[in-house]
């Protein structure tokens, strides 16, 4: 594979051809915020938090699926991007019901952490406050749709790592919802192996272990990347 040279935030970096901008940035300690990206599974480019500006392109491009190319000039934190990221976060907070103070994922949530790091200190838009269900029919786990941001990390982890494909997304636009099997209660989804990978993959408090109360749902996301690495590279020690 050939090596390309590009510039990210005034820094000249080299990359393998075909590597994503997100990958290259992280290798070079340049922080690009992400939510739907999860090490170990494919990209969905669903959250748009990783948008970057590439000189010569008027569109903003998601760094998680944009390939590094020779001579590219990339900016990751222009005022426009900062404002867009803040707006994206506000949309997440208004679309469902996020009440961090009483959430299982409080202090272990990627959405909550991003709001703080990206300066989303209040929400300028109106909250929609939809009425959404919580499914606790599974013996060990539960899903609270109030907290789901539709990143599809659970869908990809279940499909690609566990090979069960219990999860999928049904509906369109604002009515989209993650479902188990054919939109049955999770406890009746026979394809579910109860491995819990989706729970670990979920960036928010949407998927949780039953019995967790406020701030108890700590997640181990590295575990998934470790599993994938172990299988692919036969590397069983992290």
């Amino acid at each position, binding site marked *: 594979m050939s090596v390309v040279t590009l510039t990210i935030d005034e820094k000249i970096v080299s990359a393998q051809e075909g590597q994503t901008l997100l990958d290259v940035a992280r290798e070079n300690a340049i922080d690009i915020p992400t939510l739907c990206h999860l090490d170990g599974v494919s990209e969905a480019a669903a959250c748009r938090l990783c948008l970057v500006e590439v000189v010569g392109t008027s569109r903003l491009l998601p760094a998680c699926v944009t390939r590094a190319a020779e001579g590219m000039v990339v900016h990751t934190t222009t005022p426009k991007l900062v404002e867009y990221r803040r707006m994206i976060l506000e949309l997440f*907070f208004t679309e469902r*019901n*996020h*009440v*961090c*103070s*009483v*959430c299982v994922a*409080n*202090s272990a949530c990627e959405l*909550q*952490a991003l*709001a*703080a*790091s990206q*300066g989303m*200190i*209040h*929400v*300028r838009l*109106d*909250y929609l*406050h*939809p*009425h*959404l269900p919580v499914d606790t029919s599974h013996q060990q786990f539960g899903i609270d749709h*109030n907290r789901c941001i539709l990143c599809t990390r659970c869908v990809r982890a279940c499909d690609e790592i566990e090979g069960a494909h219990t999860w999928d997304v049904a509906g369109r636009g604002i009515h989209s919802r993650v479902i188990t099997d054919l939109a049955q209660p999770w406890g009746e989804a026979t394809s579910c192996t109860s491995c819990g990978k989706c729970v670990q993959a979920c960036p928010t408090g949407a998927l949780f272990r039953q019995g967790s109360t406020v*701030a108890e749902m700590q997640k181990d996301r590295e575990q998934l990347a470790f599993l994938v690495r172990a299988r692919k590279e036969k590397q069983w020690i992290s």
Partner: protein
Amino acid sequence: MDKLKFATVWLGGCSGCHMSFLDLDEWLIELADRVELVYSPLMDAKKFPEDVDVVLVEGAVANQENEEMAHRLRKASRYVIAFGDCAVTGNVTALRNPLGLALEVLRPVYLENGDANPRLPDEKGIVPVLLDRVLPLHQVIPVDCYLPGCPPDAPRIRAVLQDLLDGKVPQLSVEQRYFG
């Protein structure tokens, strides 16, 4: 230098933010040297004064009384701080919003599950009328500063007040900006 006229207000919240304010412990003595407390649930003052420099507002806007108070304090204050998650986002106070408008929330509680004489709490002039939707403070009045947290811990409160005392625009660190 004249002392800053300082007030705190309690709208639709649990008073936890005010408890956290008391957690400032001995720094309160220092604060008392620099500000004059003119209105607060922690003191005996009946009316919100005409002229206030800085006001901490705890709680969301949940009923008509909260709404009137919000407008009154805005008119009389130079610098309004949304104090804690309920003021900033609606938080726990707004948990009722997904369940429907005021009547849809009151009905199951007071009528369907009320005991001997089920009736809605509607004593005019005594029980404030609920708004259909609980609102964060900035959706009712303009807010100058946001101090999140449920409750905001004492160091956060101190950081904001210290900056104001020093004549600076308050800046919270990333750790101090977390909701919850």
